[in-house]
């Protein structure tokens, strides 16, 4: 893929968010969800965004995905502005977000149905094999455990082979053991496919384990406060989570979040995008 190289031969970042701001119109006046947020993610990089709940993480991710518009600022993918849903972007949502009236196979076929192309069965089969979901095609979401549902959601997001994967607190609802397992799986898949991944979480240890870089956000309004490089070699095992270096780094990030003036009051709205954002897109 030559997407990361400009005609002049220099490399450029895969994904650029440039001075992004977002206000929601609410009954109690405008809500400032995202303030002048900038970041750039390299091709094949694993980037995590961490921050307290209500800091605009999901707003940021939905903007990157083209699910709703920014009040100001731009999102650029491969040098092209992202103004709506983009075929090179796959999304994994909170709590799997499978359609309960479809079985697993039909859930995974959804992107193809919408795009009006035949499903890439060979690729899907390979992915199902990879995440250990072969033979569950006829099962409905309610018959699967939370971890299995999230694996299916990952297969669905990768089924049409996007180059960017956006993951919105995908494992927040899972128990700690399943979460560790899923994190290992995500790292393995990333090492194999080298997708560009933007992963949102409020779990600092998860962010440190997974990413090349951690973007730390503060709330009210949501903004970038600091970027951390995560130097640990790949593949990482869960054992590194008990090392002194990781411990210190997690604490450093935690301190960065906690010592912001707004951090203590950071619960509440702002994280979940309000209805009108998507509705505009969906109806327009």
């Amino acid at each position, binding site marked *: 893929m030559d997407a990361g190289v400009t005609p002049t031969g220099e490399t450029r970042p895969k994904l650029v968010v440039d001075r992004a701001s977002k206000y929601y119109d609410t009954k109690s006046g405008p809500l400032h969800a995202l303030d002048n947020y900038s970041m750039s993610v390299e091709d094949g990089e694993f980037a995590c965004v961490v921050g307290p709940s209500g800091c605009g993480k999901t707003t940021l991710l939905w903007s990157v995905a083209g699910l709703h518009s920014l009040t100001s600022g731009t999102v650029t993918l491969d040098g092209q502005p992202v103004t709506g849903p983009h075929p090179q972007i796959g*999304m994994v949502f909170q709590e799997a977000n499978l359609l309960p009236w479809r079985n697993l196979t039909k859930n995974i076929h959804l992107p193809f149905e919408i795009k009006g192309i035949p499903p890439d069965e060979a690729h899907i089969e390979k992915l199902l094999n990879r995440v250990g979901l072969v033979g569950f095609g006829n099962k409905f979401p309610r018959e699967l455990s939370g971890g299995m549902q999230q694996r299916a959601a990952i297969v669905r997001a990768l089924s049409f082979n996007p180059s960017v994967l956006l993951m919105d607190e995908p494992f927040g609802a899972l128990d700690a053991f399943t979460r560790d397992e899923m994190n290992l799986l995500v790292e393995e898949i990333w090492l194999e496919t080298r997708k560009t991944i933007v992963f949102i979480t409020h779990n600092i240890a998860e962010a440190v384990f997974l990413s090349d870089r951690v973007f730390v956000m503060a709330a009210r309004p949501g903004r970038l406060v600091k970027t951390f490089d995560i130097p640990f070699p790949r593949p990482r095992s869960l054992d590194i989570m008990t090392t002194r270096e990781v411990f210190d780094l997690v604490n450093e990030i935690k301190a960065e979040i906690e010592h912001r003036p707004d951090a203590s009051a950071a619960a509440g709205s702002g994280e979940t995008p309000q209805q009108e954002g998507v509705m505009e897109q969906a109806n327009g």
Partner: protein
Amino acid sequence: MVDRELGDRIPTFGDAKPTDDQSIGVTNLSAFKGSSEKKSAQEIAAIVAVAVIIVGGGEFLLRFLQVPQFVMPPPSAILTSLVVDFGFIAPHLGHTLVELLSGYAIGASVGLVLAAVITQFPFAEKIIAPYILMLVTTPMLALVPLLILNFGFGYTPRIIAVALASGPMVMINAATGFRRVDLAKIALARSFGASTLQIFMKIRVPMAMPMIIVGLMIGAIFGLLTAVGAEMVGGGFGLGNRLTTYSATIQMPQFFAVILILSTLGILIYVAFFLIGKKWAGWES
């Protein structure tokens, strides 16, 4: 002492999935719910025994107390009449079915389309809501004399009455279904580039399906009530007409035979929608 409610249930917290009758969906409106599961021989024996006691006991009591037939005929007389007079009643059943099916087809399809359209325009919905409410709460039977005045004693006034009775019921329930919006699911479809129409077809319609089926069932039952009621008001055919005729001529076994046919029809409607609900909206329960 173990709590009867908790019994042997697997403990669940948080996920507030109602176990039985609280959630919407056809499959749990019902006394039937249990009958979808396998019954033990014991249960079947008990059900049959109770039925025999009710029918047999009724027969015995009515004969023993010498209740006159015009007050309440014994079950045997009703069943005899059902067999003997069915040939005569059958065409009337046919008329009622024609009215019900055509009126319902019109009412239900208009109701569904209106529900789908108005829920897309919240402002329009607010404006027409009072009229819908009026249509739902006004007994359409009250309009039948007027309809007969305008359209005569044929099928037409009855079909209109059935459509007017079933349409709003379908619409109000379907609209409730279409208003159930799961933002995350819409965002999911949208992230694959779905158009408004695709979101409607692949997300909104399936999400609304349990409520649509409930609406279709209630609409069908209301349609049956209205068809029979309209036949009782005027016109020389249909099961409702039979009821007025038989009661005027004190032919009670025949009267109750018609009642039996009507309740069977109602049960059939219910069972049909129960099965449809299980197939198309089973994911919700």
